[in-house]
């Protein structure tokens, strides 16, 4: 039996989505499994919508086919919905609940939808896990660990084909000594937030 785990990571450029994708890839190598990931660099990083794919196991290409993601993890609620084509009923969608309003709303007259509507649509298509990653990150000591909170949530959501501590150890190996405690708190905070869907 071939095993594949497809994870979509989304958010806003500059929020650490690519970093999260890279750490997840490294953790997979540490777990001695095959991984193939795809990232977005360059212009899109300037505050734009960002998507990365991480594929684990018996996979060939870097991209995930529509409807085949096991999880979509997002650092922003509408960005989770923007890439909903990758989900099926079985997909677990983990998202931060705090909007980052794009400038097109203030300047271009576009509208940011109500979060109730956003979550309702996600729920109709997949399994939704809402977390206040911003609060957990802030409580952990640094709001820029929001991406680590989301990774913690992913680790607790029974998606990864390896143990959570491999991911945590990889994170800690990749941050300077003095920020390890903040990152560990953020990760564990993310894990705890996923107890009940």
């Amino acid at each position: 039996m071939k095993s594949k785990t497809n994870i979509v990571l989304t958010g806003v450029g500059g929020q650490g989505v690519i970093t999260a994708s890279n750490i997840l890839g490294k953790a997979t190598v540490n777990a001695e499994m095959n991984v193939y990931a795809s990232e977005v660099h360059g212009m899109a990083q300037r505050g734009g919508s960002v998507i990365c794919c991480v594929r684990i196991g018996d996979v060939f290409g870097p991209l995930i086919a529509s409807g085949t993601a096991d999880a979509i993890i997002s650092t922003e609620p509408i960005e989770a919905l923007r890439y909903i084509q990758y989900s099926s009923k079985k997909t677990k969608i983990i998202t931060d609940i705090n909007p980052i309003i794009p400038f097109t709303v203030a300047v271009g007259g576009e509208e940011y939808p109500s979060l109730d509507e956003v979550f309702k649509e996600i729920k109709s298509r997949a399994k939704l896990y809402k977390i206040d990653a911003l609060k957990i990150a802030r409580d952990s000591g640094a709001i820029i660990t929001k991406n680590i909170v989301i990774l913690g949530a992913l680790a607790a959501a029974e998606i990864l084909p390896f143990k959570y501590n491999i991911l945590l150890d990889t994170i800690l190996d990749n941050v300077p000594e003095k920020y390890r405690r903040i990152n560990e708190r953020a990760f564990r905070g993310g894990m705890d937030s996923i107890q009940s869907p």
Partner: protein
Amino acid sequence: MEIIEDKPEKAILLLGNEAITRGALEGGIDVATTYPGTPSSEIADTFSAIAKYLKKNGKKPNFHFEYSINEKVALEMAAAASFSGLRALTCMKHVGLNVASDALMTYLYVGCKGGHIIVTADDPYCHSSQNEQDNRYFALFGSAPMLEPSSPQEAKEMTRIGFKISEELKQPLLFRTTTRLNHARGPITLKKLEKTRGKGYFEKDPMLVTVPSTARANHYDLLKKMDQAEKISEKSPFNEIITTGETNEIGIVTSGVSFNYVKEAVEDLETSAKILKLGMTHPLPRKMCEKLIKSCKEIIIVEELEPILENQFKVMAYDLGSNVKIFGKSTGHFSRLYEYNPYIVTDAISKILGIKNPISNPTGYKIKLPSRPPALCPGCPHRATYFAVKKASPKNTVYPTDIGCYTLGKEPPLEVADLLLCMGANAGIACGLSVSTDQKIISFMGDSTFFHSGIPPIIDAVHHNHDVVITILDNRTTAMTGHQPNPGTDFDGMGRPAKRIHVEDVAKGCGVEHIEVTNPSDIKETTQVFKRALEFHGPAVVVSKSPCILLENRAKRKTGKKIPTYEIDQDKCKHCKTCIGQFGCPAFYYAEDESIHIDELQCNGCGDCVQICPFDSISKKEEKTDEK
């Protein structure tokens, strides 16, 4: 540093671009050159990081690396290294090869000595480019052998082995990647690092001087070399026919990242086929291709962008008198546009073979979501320059722009980008407009673009006295591609001190008579600077100097300095909307009651907005020190 470890058989996770750098190290690279451009940048950035790491640890790198002034100079530098018997690599984005092509086309006639790999990083779907040209045409155009990796692991191996192929043929190789390879990450199995050569020696040879008589002889030799290259292609481990499942009479021809989608499609469709996977795509392994044509009734060609393999297969089938049916772009199953993905490839193959596609149709979201395009960062000094320009210039002023972060000035409310072609084009276009219209012209380019190809049109403007204002947005870095140094910085790509060249000095040397240097964070003064430039008859140059806010803040965080954040006094705010409707910093937002606020998470603390509020309602707030 993992990437320079000499640990054969160890598996490490690398970006496609990093894998190319590792391959070059395993192949004994002596000289690497580039001009940065997404999606190629990290190849060079990795050389730069290695050189800096070694310097920090008191060691000398055994290669020379540089961010050259442009792609043409980068190619010429590396060609010279090759002529001296050294191994060289030049990398650039696809449009960079246009700049380097003048050197390339004759370099291919002359040939090389030390192995030389020229990486062209194509960008199907224009993720971060102004076009999606297919640079495989350059291989056909100039008779260059071409390698196309399908995965980071293969990219590493191809780079390592590429030097040897190049030396065997005495020909530089084109190494074509696409964004999905450059920015794919996968496990790489390391091999031994080969010794480098240090210094080479330039042996004089009259055939290197391409006067007409030698050029004619060189062209003859080039065609002979391509015959030899075909033999290498025939035996290359990168070209192979992979039979999946039961043998049948269906062939699939593919190369690059499309190979991955084909493999996955054949598996998902539970079908079988003979897959011809091409890694050396020019010249094609003719015998191998003919073998496939003869053994198949139907051949499907899967290649992004142009029908280059497809057309060559049709020619080969015609020459063989074969009746094989070839499916691809001409039959309407595949598009010449954009990037492929697993769904597109599986769906097309399923339709051709008459099998049901198990992958669901991608169905997007139903409710309306606001778009989130990239934007000038909060605190970007370009925003202040643009705000001043808009204040200073009459309504029908035309704003030719250029390639860099500042292109994002296109978006509302600034809308200071009217024409964009390629690197350095802003000033040439400005000159053309000045003789073609009576409108005022203010053009924009960054400091790196100025050095790259922005100087010749300034000289043209001076010589012909064109009535233009040429602005250099000098943030002392090549920001969009990842903050690489340029001749305006006082260090180079290997982290060594380097002579800083000032934009205004160059403009003066070009003969520009009206030059003003301004700091855009003084918006009032900058507005006056642009007014004076517009009033000047003849070419005027404005150098708007302020460092990239991302670098500023990174330095502040490192040294423990506070980054301020700003807030709006709701009692003073009169909702004139200057901050949102004219300045347009993404940190401003409307609350549900329509009051305007500054998002402290987005604010980068530049404080420029304090100056633009007519009611003095914006002021500094508490300090933020968030960092990892």
